[in-house]
């Protein structure tokens, strides 16, 4: 799932870098404020743990093997902000020193695995874990952290213009789903074991709402991710969708006033418009579902 350099088109790696870098900066400052500054080395040792745990391979079905990814486990043991920071640190190290993932693609990889994966785990638990089905929340968190990260990576590759035949896309999605299920089961088992060893090690997010909302949220994420995937393998349909919503029109109008000179270049790069529209759509849908979930939760409590 680590995207190397040379795979992504410039708007994608630059755009995701511009999104991830400030986000990591904010996280770093927040973690520094919340933790005593001198406690930061502890996070580093836990990052080394994730790095090492990823090396424990075990056989799965049909000759494939799997390993823990760990973003959900860290979310439930260190808290989401620290987990995202630790995962970012691991990705930075892998890109710089181990040539696992590109340096320019670091923004995209952090976006997918550190931010997307941790957020997926955090939200899944928040919305799914009511006392009775706590295990479901943990399982879904683990599974979705991997699935969302992988699907985002595939969507970014698709938006960058790498054409993936439908058959191969199907195989990669099934493998991703299998990896997700394994991660979910492993995260659930691990949390049970760790809670038995020392309850202090487990810090679950506060469960905020009804499971129905959680299922809706997760369904929405899956639908949007799937939609972007389908759209990116068939770029025409994305263009059609953008036209239909009037997104392209509005983007053009928005750009006309401040950037009149660049308009011609912008239109001469239809793929840029497509990529921007796709990512903006994904971000907007995700933000909307989070906002709606928050609002509903608040109304229920208040």
């Amino acid at each position, binding site marked *: 799932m680590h995207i*190397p*350099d040379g*795979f992504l088109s410039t708007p994608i790696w630059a755009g995701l870098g511009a999104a991830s870098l400030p986000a990591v900066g904010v996280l770093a400052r927040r973690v520094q404020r919340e933790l005593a*500054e*001198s406690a930061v080395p502890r996070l580093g040792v836990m990052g*080394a743990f994730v790095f090492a745990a990823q090396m424990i391979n075990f056989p799965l079905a049909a000759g494939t093997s799997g390993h*823990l990814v760990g973003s959900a486990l860290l979310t439930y043991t260190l808290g989401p902000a620290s987990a995202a920071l630790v995962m970012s640190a691991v990705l930075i190290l892998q890109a*710089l020193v181990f040539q696992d993932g590109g340096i320019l693609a670091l923004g995209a990889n952090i976006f997918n695995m550190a931010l997307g994966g941790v957020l997926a785990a955090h939200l899944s638990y928040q919305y799914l874990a009511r006392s009775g089905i706590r295990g479901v929340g943990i399982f879904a968190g683990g599974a979705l952290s991997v699935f969302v990260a992988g699907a985002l990576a595939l969507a970014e590759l698709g938006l960058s213009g790498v054409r993936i035949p439908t058959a191969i896309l199907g195989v990669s999605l099934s493998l991703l789903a299998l990896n997700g299920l394994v991660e979910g089961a492993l995260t659930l088992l*691990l949390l049970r074991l760790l809670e038995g060893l020392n309850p202090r090690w487990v810090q679950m997010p506060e469960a905020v709402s009804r499971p129905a909302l959680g299922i809706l949220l997760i369904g929405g994420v899956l639908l949007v991710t799937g939609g972007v995937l389908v759209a990116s393998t068939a770029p025409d349909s994305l263009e059609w969708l953008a036209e239909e919503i009037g997104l392209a029109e509005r983007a053009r109008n928005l750009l006309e006033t401040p950037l009149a000179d660049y308009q011609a270049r912008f239109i001469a790069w239809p793929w840029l418009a497509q990529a921007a529209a796709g990512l903006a759509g994904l971000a907007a849908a995700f933000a909307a579902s989070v906002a709606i979930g928050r609002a509903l939760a608040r109304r229920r409590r208040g």
Partner: protein
Amino acid sequence: MHHVVLEQWARRTGPVHALDPRVKLGVTLLFLIAIAAGPPLSVAQFAAYAGLLAGVVLAAGLPLGGVALRAGIVLPLAGAFAAVSWLAGDSHRGLTILLKSYLSVFAALTLVGTTPVARLFLGLKRLGVPASLVLVVQFVYRYLFVISEQVQHMRLAAKSRGALERAPRRYRLMVPAGAIAVLFARSYRRAEAVHHAMLARGFTGQIEAATPLRLGAADLVAGGAAAGVVLAVRFAF
């Protein structure tokens, strides 16, 4: 192992090793952007970029073959995607991915092969990466080898207890989960022990560099020249 060789290379001395890590980071970034944001590489352009990297590697006194071979680490993945693109009828893009990703990894290897990791992290911090993030990265790197070794010990111990290569189906996830839980417990305790030991020795939140970075005229001239050559290759071919 991969990183051990890289560290040995990084510890050598020479004109490229002596450059300020900030300059090397900047030039590497410029090189990567020139490749990534440029049009599909022509043969001449690929040769020019490769020649440029080879020149730096040779000037640094690193084995060119070793670096070129190690950069091949990205080829399986890039090759797979090239094959997929080729299947989809877009062989040109496949070739572009292959060439661009190889050159990018080559450039990253040239950077870490000529810069000790500690200097690299210090450079990142001076370039504005948040200090707490750099601190986490430093500690991941420091304890990565310690904890990986623990994994090796645990693997050996499991083998000597008669562990099976393939656990019976119903234990297939329980076995790795148990191993990872043990590793978590040991790492967590180690993290606390390390933290306490550091506090006892007067740690206040930042690691100070024994030899601080100093940006000299030679660094700026070399960096400017390298940037100029990269831009020349980008726009001349």
